[in-house]
């Protein structure tokens, strides 16, 4: 089970003086990367704020067309998945790689659930013609700002969905490494950093959900 004694020396890259420095660097790099992700979304949040201000009525009416039940379920799903990832990190530090694999598998399953539900939502909007910009053809609600809401809805949830997929890929890769018993008290950085990424994905959704579904 515990392989860190053999693993630790080989994991040190040639250009770092010691493992501590290397992990510090990796963690710092990840945090910086997450800040760029937040700024990427910040553009969309800015656009949302501006157009919400310009078209308060259109946005309010259009957000009623969002499927709150599915959105709420997805929120619960993602928050729970953050918990399972946190547990996986905990067990990775203990070197209990089998639990890590199990927990990550559950997390990925949550991710799949999220994407499937999202897919149903997209399908409903598609069928009803509640689409961005010039594709908007829903006769039940017309007026300025409505198609803008759907442009932002699809851009924001689409970009977020892409991040969910990337996060699932990352967690899958880490889970695969856990099946090879790679993690332990001396080395668990990949699990931690992928977990951080997953938490960010979760966090962004926690902002998206009220903005797009509830307000």
């Amino acid at each position: 089970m515990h392989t860190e004694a053999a693993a630790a020396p080989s994991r040190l890259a040639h250009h770092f003086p010691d493992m501590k420095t290397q992990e510090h660097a990796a963690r710092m790099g990840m945090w910086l990367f997450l800040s760029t992700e937040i700024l990427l979304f910040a553009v969309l949040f800015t656009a949302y704020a501006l157009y919400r201000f310009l078209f308060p009525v259109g946005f309010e009416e259009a957000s009623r067309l969002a499927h709150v039940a599915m959105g709420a379920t997805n929120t619960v799903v993602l928050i729970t998945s953050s918990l399972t990832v946190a547990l996986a990190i905990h067990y990775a530090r203990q070197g209990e790689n089998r639990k890590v694999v199990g927990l990550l598998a559950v997390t990925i399953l949550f991710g799949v659930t999220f994407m499937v539900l999202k897919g149903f939502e997209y399908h409903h909007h598609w069928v009803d013609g509640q689409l961005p910009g010039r594709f908007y053809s829903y006769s039940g609600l017309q007026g300025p700002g409505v198609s803008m809401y759907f442009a932002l809805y699809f851009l924001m949830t689409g970009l977020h969905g892409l991040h969910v997929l990337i996060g699932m890929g990352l967690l899958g890769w880490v889970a695969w490494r856990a099946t090879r018993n790679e993690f332990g008290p001396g080395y668990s950085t990949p699990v931690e950093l992928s977990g951080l990424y997953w938490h960010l994905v979760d966090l962004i959704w926690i902002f998206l959900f009220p903005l797009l579904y509830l307000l």
Partner: protein
Amino acid sequence: MSPSPASSPAYQTPNYLNAVKGVGSWLTTLDHKRIGVMYLVLTVLSFFLGGVFALLLRIELVTPGPTIMDAMTYNRMFTLHGVIMIFLFMIPAIPGIFGNFFIPLMIGAQDVAFPRINLLSVYLYLAGAAIAVWGMIQGGTDTGWTFYTPYSTTTVTTVAPVLLGAFILGMGSIVTGLNFIVTVHTMRAPGVTWMRLPLFVWAMYATSVIQVLATPVLGMTLLLVAFERVFGFGIFDPARGGDPILFQHLFWFYSHPAVYIMILPAMGVVSEVVQTFSRKNMFGYKAVAFSSLGIAFVGFFVWGHHLFTSGQSTFASGVFGVLSMFVGLFTAIKVFNWTATMYQGAIQVSAPFVYFMGFLYFLVFGGLTGIALSTVSLDVHWQDTYFVVAHFHFIMVGGTIMAFLAGLHYWWPKMFGRMYSERWALAAAVLVIVGFNATFIPQFLLGNMGMPRRYYSYPEQFWPLNVASTAGASLLGLGFTIVLVYLVVSLVKGRVSGPNPWNSRGYEWNTPSPPEAQNFPETPVHDRGPHEYQDGPAAEVKHAH
């Protein structure tokens, strides 16, 4: 420019260039020094490509009417010139070449923190450049490098590939910046405290902060324009309730700080050059170091000075105007401290120093015209005229390229172990500085006369000054070509430089020239700051005046 003189004496010592051989060893290298050299080749190639377009543009403007191309070609060409110069040269050049090569050497590290990501940034550069240039050749974008909506969303030319290319180039820029920040934080050798960090590293650190925090905004904004073009989402389309001014805000939120991505590294380079060639430690080290951070910080809050005539509120214009002046203030501090560094120095007037003096001159005038432009009312006349064109070329070409050339000549022996011909270098430096003045001083006057930028044809009163500008541009082109030729020649025929031809006490010179593949056989320990040219251990501290 790929160096291959394996038989010559300089390269008989083992070094990073001859440690491993073959094209494959370059394409898969993780060595920050080789990556720096690859950036050198790529960015210089881009620079000459962009320069050829600049010359063609100037030739077109020799007569008031059509000269050698039609309006559509002209519009595509200035877009090409702008995109290539900014995204393929200005932004990646100094960080990619000197940042990669010297940050680890200066802080006593064996490499940057993430060597694989570093190599990835080169490939992102290649991919972005390929997509952008392919798109421009295919459809020929005619939007200008600013991609203003709704022009960019409605024009009939191909825009999306260029947007995508710029997005990918932005990703390369982000990972480079991220890499440098982590490297500086975690990999300094013992003794290299923050207050002993070479000023080039300080400047690169400030630059990296901007790259990491601003570039994602540009990336997303360009993607939105692409979405708008391809799918008609209407985010910036007034016909669908969109706001074209939102684009300008988002665009300049990146692109103004991006100007500091281009000039801050240049300021770092000249800080090193002026210390070495004056044999003096920096006068006001902290002021110069922290003013870099100051520019990086304030740079995020000045973007609105591009929108003084767009109908933005007068209050916003006032705030952005006055904040812009603080950038000038931080720059002024640097200029004064560089000048004061020369005081009681031991100055060697060599090519890099001549470029430093040129840099000082262009930065002072480019900077002061910038201050004049942020004097809100004057901008109403100058906005979108040749005055603005001349202003940013003074900073970008006059400032950044002078510093780039200063750094290239200063570090050439460090990178390749060879000396270039000093006589040719001095001649080219003078030619470049004279040619540059002749190109852009007429453009300031054209701006005063009211000639708008991006004009394919123009009324006759603008004719004489345009001819003068084109004449200057040809001198400039000649100067740059001479530099390229003697530098390439020096790779083969240049005198072997020895490890430290300038007797510099910068940290990076503590290694052989060219350095070995592994930077330091053992981790260096520093007990004094860089550029301390006092003999004896306890130098007295004298105060100026």
